[in-house]
């Protein structure tokens, strides 16, 4: 299981990256993260919504109410221009951390 601090820090870049593929809703975002991490990255489901609302207030994403296939109300989120810029920044920073870690790991085996 991934540590709580890392889960929290990765929430925003993951949400932005998932929404960059098209609009989505809370439940689908959580299921997608679970599936992609093989269940190792677990959010308390309800905690996603304050994060989504915060990102919306910051102008990174926008939302609209729609309907599911069964007619149930659903709130869909999509990326805004500032969100795309924030996502690019996140990718740059996480790539940097990843490359440092990978480099240090490689040195251990030389």
């Amino acid at each position, binding site marked *: 299981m991934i540590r709580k601090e890392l889960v929290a820090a990765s929430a925003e*870049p993951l949400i932005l990256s998932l929404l960059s593929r098209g609009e989505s*809703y809370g*439940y689908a975002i959580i299921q997608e993260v679970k599936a992609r991490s093989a269940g190792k990255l677990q959010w*308390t489901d309800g*905690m996603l*919504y*304050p994060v989504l609302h*915060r990102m919306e*207030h910051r102008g990174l994403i926008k939302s609209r109410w729609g309907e599911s296939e069964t007619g149930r109300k659903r709130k869909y989120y999509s990326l805004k221009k500032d969100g795309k810029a924030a996502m690019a920044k*996140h990718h740059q920073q996480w790539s940097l951390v990843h490359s440092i870690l990978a480099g240090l790991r490689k040195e251990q085996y030389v």
Partner: protein
Amino acid sequence: MFDLEPSIVEWRRQMFAAGIKTPVPLEELESHLREELERQMRLGLSEPQAFEAAARQIGQARALRSEFKKNDASIGARFVELTGIAWGVIAGLFSLWFLLLLFTVHEVNWAGRMLGLVAMASTVLIWRYGYRILPVIRHPQVRALIGFAGCVASMVWMGIFIKHILPPLIGQVAVSPGRLMVSFLWAWTLAAMLAGIAPGLGKIAFRQNQPAIS
């Protein structure tokens, strides 16, 4: 005997009692609860078991409330920022109007026109880059308070200028209309700068907050 709909109503009541009082999060959380419930039932759980699992998965009402509360503080700060932007735009439009007058009224000399241009350029530059000299205030409520003080100071300043500074200037026979316009322009410039504190604080806090792994 377990009954799903009353259980969901009771779950909503508990969320409401814990402090999640606005309809949007409750609607969203309920929609999520129902989707998770259906998934659990497809996996083979009974209705009561699925409901219990879905409610557990959503999390404790109090923990959720404390997360949503952080957003409420941000909304207040955002409202003050928007007030600052609106007031700054009004001040900016007035400045622009006076600048146009300065350049169209014939009796204004070039020195007056240049002073007017400098006032307008100062406003634009400070609104564009001034936020960089502001401190990073992470607490949204403190940011809102300071921004609100900036907006109030801006409005009070324009009140003082119009009520107490402008009339004596108009009364002076030697003061030309051009000088009056330049004075008004600089007064609006100061008002726009004070109003710009609220959006400026928001912008610098947002920029500092961008990296998730700082």
